[in-house]
């Protein structure tokens, strides 16, 4: 009795091990067979790789570009400047005095006095409205103090400084010139979202393309599937080679995407470095990196699996021996 049970236990353990071996063997077989098929149809495989590669490279490449842009802009010190418009009745001498007084503050680096005449001259030179302006009897511009906050001053400290300067006697209005930086930041955020949306769309596209490719593969092997089911092939058994096919297409597409992104970065690298040198910066483009490339490969593989799964669940069940 116990001996028989022990025998039974040993047998069932052996049979689990056998079944595991068989399962593993079929995985290897399916993987190798589907890879062979994928590599045999060179042209159509290459097309599929390219389609998936381009669809993946687009959002990934844009994202890499955005990352670079963000890194570049983070390196810029916020070059805020406070413009103080002085009241009309203040004389130029009083303006100069105020400038000198302000320059004493710890949180102020420099103060530049721009007289209303200078301001008008500069404006008419820059705007091309010289004729119109010279026909004016009165100079409409006030005197101006350009205040640069001490370097390293935090953003809210600059805002506080602006408030304090606005309250000084003789100051009509204080304007903080950081809007363009904020604008840049919001443009970057918007681009980030656009890239994300584009990425999601293209990922869906890739899954659908792969699903269709696998569907065609299933159709072209319909008779074979019928025969396999007839001699006792289970659904997972029939499914396996097609899932591997999807995986290989996905991997190939991911590889192409990684190559495309790296190639474009390489292509852009030189001009960017030259441009950076012109701005006396040592900025250089950050590439995809090994991890980025691996991630692309894995992402491609997963999308391939997803597409294959979609096709297989929709089309395999309906192929039954008649």
């Amino acid at each position, binding site marked *: 009795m116990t001996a028989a049970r022990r025998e039974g236990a040993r047998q069932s353990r052996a049979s689990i091990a056998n079944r595991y071996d068989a399962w593993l063997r079929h995985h290897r077989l399916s993987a190798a067979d589907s890879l062979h098929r994928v590599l045999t149809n060179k042209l159509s495989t290459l097309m599929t790789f390219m389609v998936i590669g381009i669809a993946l490279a687009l959002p990934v490449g844009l994202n890499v570009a955005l990352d670079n842009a963000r890194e570049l802009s983070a390196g810029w010190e916020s070059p805020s400047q406070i413009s103080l418009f002085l009241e009309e009745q203040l004389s130029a001498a009083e303006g100069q005095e105020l400038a000198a007084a302000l320059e004493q503050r710890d949180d102020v680096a420099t103060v530049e006095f721009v007289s209303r005449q200078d301001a008008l001259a500069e404006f008419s030179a820059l705007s091309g409205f010289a004729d119109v302006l010279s026909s004016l009897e009165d100079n409409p511009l006030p005197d101006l103090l350009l205040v640069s906050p001490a370097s390293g001053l935090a953003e809210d400290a600059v805002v506080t400084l602006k408030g304090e300067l606005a309250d000084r006697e003789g100051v009509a209005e204080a304007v903080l010139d950081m809007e363009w930086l904020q604008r840049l930041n919001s443009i970057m955020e918007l681009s980030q979202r656009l890239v994300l949306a584009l990425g999601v769309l293209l990922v869906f596209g890739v899954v659908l393309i792969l699903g269709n490719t696998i569907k065609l593969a299933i159709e072209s092997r319909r008779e074979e599937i019928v025969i396999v089911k007839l001699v006792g092939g289970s659904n997972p058994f029939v499914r396996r080679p097609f899932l591997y096919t999807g995986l290989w297409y996905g991997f190939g597409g991911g590889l192409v995407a990684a190559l495309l992104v790296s190639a474009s970065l390489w292509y852009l690298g030189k001009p960017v470095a030259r441009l950076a040198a012109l701005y006396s910066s040592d900025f250089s483009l950050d590439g995809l990196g090994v991890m980025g490339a691996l991630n692309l490969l894995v992402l491609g593989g997963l999308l391939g699996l997803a597409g294959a799964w979609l096709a297989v669940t929709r089309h395999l069940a309906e192929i*039954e021996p008649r």
Partner: protein
Amino acid sequence: MISFQRVSKRYAEGHDALREVSFDIAKDDLVFLTGHSGAGKSTLMRLIMLMDRATRGKVLVDGVDLATVGKRGIPGHRRNIGVVFQNHQLLFDRPVFDNVALPLVIGGYDYREVGRRVRAALDKVGLLSKERAMPLTLSGGEQQRVGIARAVVCRPRILLADEPTGNLDPELSAEIMRLFEDFNQVGVTVLIASHDLALISRLRHRILTLKEGRLVNGGVA
């Protein structure tokens, strides 16, 4: 081994392909199934293979009521039965060896065992030398024998054959039938559908005759 109890099969269009069919096939039996074209021979085989299910009545195979075999159980059920078809159902893009090996690959046998069994089966049907040939380069009779080798390679206890001699000449047909008799000799239950009455009446085995879906001869009372 195979038992039909008042089995009826009505196709969706309302056509009754089988009506109240009852019979028992014992283990180790070799039984012929005959009848005019459209009598329901293939339908009967399809029920045994679970390619279709009975509308009424019970089909038992090896003591198992097929009504209790769910969708997931079908592949396992089919693996216990070898089938030979009139239209060979071979994989024409694979050599003979791969065709015969298919049930073993599905069954998860290891490479050495696959090689051994495939060669044994091919030897049995006299095609050992054609192992690497493609099916299209073989004659009809040879293709049929590849199908038989595939059906027996897993050593099933039941062997079904639907018109296995369909368009073969009498000599080849007799040879194929002899093969089935050999398998029957070693304990395989064999059911062969055929309308070659001249051939099967010479072989002195039990004959089930279907007529318009009814069993008119060879069944049980």
